């Protein structure tokens, strides 16, 4: 579907005014990487930096969406307008997705102060939609005070979220087997706040204590990471979560402007390159690519040498597939 845009400057202006329909449309254009997208992203640049972007990540089923729902209610009580970007994986086979996070947030559907958008990862390697950062920027430019980014924790996506969010909340739940073990690998490094959700469950306290103990073993020179217990269904602990997010946001805002965060743009570019290269390799019908593939099959070429040749091919002959 090639959707051409008649009036991009007008759309950007309406978005900056905060009009929901314009925000919704701009998100689609940016997500689909249409030519109009770059015009919109340029137009909103002077309007960035108002919002606090809060990332919620963790394994499937720990209650991220339910907690986001409860957190939205808390933010609304505090007078904040909210944007939510909820990312679910696309099927790697068909590209399709059922986007169901917002089912848990249904109580906010008719609140004008809450704008929720479901994104499919559309093949992004780490699980976070490649355009999630730009969508967060659109919501920022549209005047949302807090932008919440929900993503499924798949290892790589935590690292991506770390690049995008001002405040990183990592969520776990009791009774998820070796969940606490899983959390050790890499996530502690990026978390600003750790949440043990489902505090109503029997093992919650134990999980909380394990996490605190684990954090206690860390280098004492590092900043402390609060461990909070929440019950997203009965809505306990969410005020503390909102306070903790505000505290971290205060620190971050003083430090630097989000879009200037070192490495963020470079990371997004690297992701886009990977995606372009993947599309090229998968769709190309040229002799060059076929020869590289065969070389690797016959063990004449290493994978990394093959990749180097593909990148040269991308730059030279351009795209042909």
């Amino acid at each position, binding site marked *: 579907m090639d959707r051409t845009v008649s009036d991009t400057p007008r759309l950007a202006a309406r978005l900056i005014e905060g009009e929901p329909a314009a925000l919704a*449309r701009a998100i689609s254009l940016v997500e689909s990487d249409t030519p109009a997208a770059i015009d919109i992203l340029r137009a909103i640049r002077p309007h960035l930096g108002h919002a606090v972007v809060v990332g919620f990540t963790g394994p499937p089923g720990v209650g991220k969406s339910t907690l986001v729902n409860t957190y939205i209610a808390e933010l609304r009580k505090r007078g904040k307008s909210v944007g939510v970007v909820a990312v679910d994986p696309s099927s790697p086979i*068909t590209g399709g997705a059922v986007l169901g996070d917002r089912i848990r947030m249904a109580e906010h559907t008719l609140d004008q102060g809450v704008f929720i*958008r479901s994104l499919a990862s559309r093949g992004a390697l780490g699980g976070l939609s490649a355009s999630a950062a730009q969508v967060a920027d659109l919501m920022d430019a549209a005047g949302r005070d807090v932008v919440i980014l929900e993503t499924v924790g798949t290892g790589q996506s935590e690292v991506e979220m770390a690049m995008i969010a001002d405040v990183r909340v990592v969520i776990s739940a009791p009774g998820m087997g070796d969940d606490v073990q899983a959390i050790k690998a890499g996530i502690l490094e990026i978390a600003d706040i750790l949440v043990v959700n489902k505090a109503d469950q029997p093992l919650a306290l134990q999980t909380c204590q394990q996490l605190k103990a684990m954090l206690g073993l860390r280098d004492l020179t590092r900043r402390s990471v609060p461990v909070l217990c929440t019950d997203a269904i009965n809505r306990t602990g969410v005020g503390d979560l909102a306070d903790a997010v505000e505290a971290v946001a205060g620190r971050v805002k003083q430090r630097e402007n989000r879009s200037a965060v070192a490495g963020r743009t470079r990371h997004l570019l690297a992701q886009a390159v990977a995606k372009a290269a993947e599309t090229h390799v998968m769709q*190309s019908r040229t002799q060059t690519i076929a020869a590289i593939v065969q070389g690797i099959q016959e063990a004449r070429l290493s994978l990394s040498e093959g990749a180097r040749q593909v990148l040269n091919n991308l730059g030279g002959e351009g795209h042909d597939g």
Partner: protein
Amino acid sequence: MALTATIPARVLVTKIGLDGHDRGSRIVAAYLRDAGMEVIYTEPWQKIESVVALALQEDVDVIGISSLATDHLLVPKLMKALDGAGLGHIRVIVGGIVPDDEEAVLLKSGVSRVFHPGADRADIVDVVARLARDAGANRPDG
């Protein structure tokens, strides 16, 4: 363009009114997902205003309403509400138990197509894909 993949259609699959039969809507959501579409799925019992808000925020191309009781009689009201919200480009389809005379009313109110029990998967997928393209071509903002 070699480096751009095609853009998936976005479809809202939902139910309005008091009817709780959700097997049809779940199955249809899975059909569309497996055909490569992005489906926003909700629980039954949505209000008309909620469907409009969902369709707007999610920028969908097509809305599919599943109705096994009499709640499809609310769909003409939905069509008006969509128009009023500037979402007249969105295509609406209905599936479920809809008698012929009521189907005629729905079609007259602007519904693109009504499906019945036993509706064929390939037919549903084809129709939704075509309607999504129509919606894209008729957007006010391009």
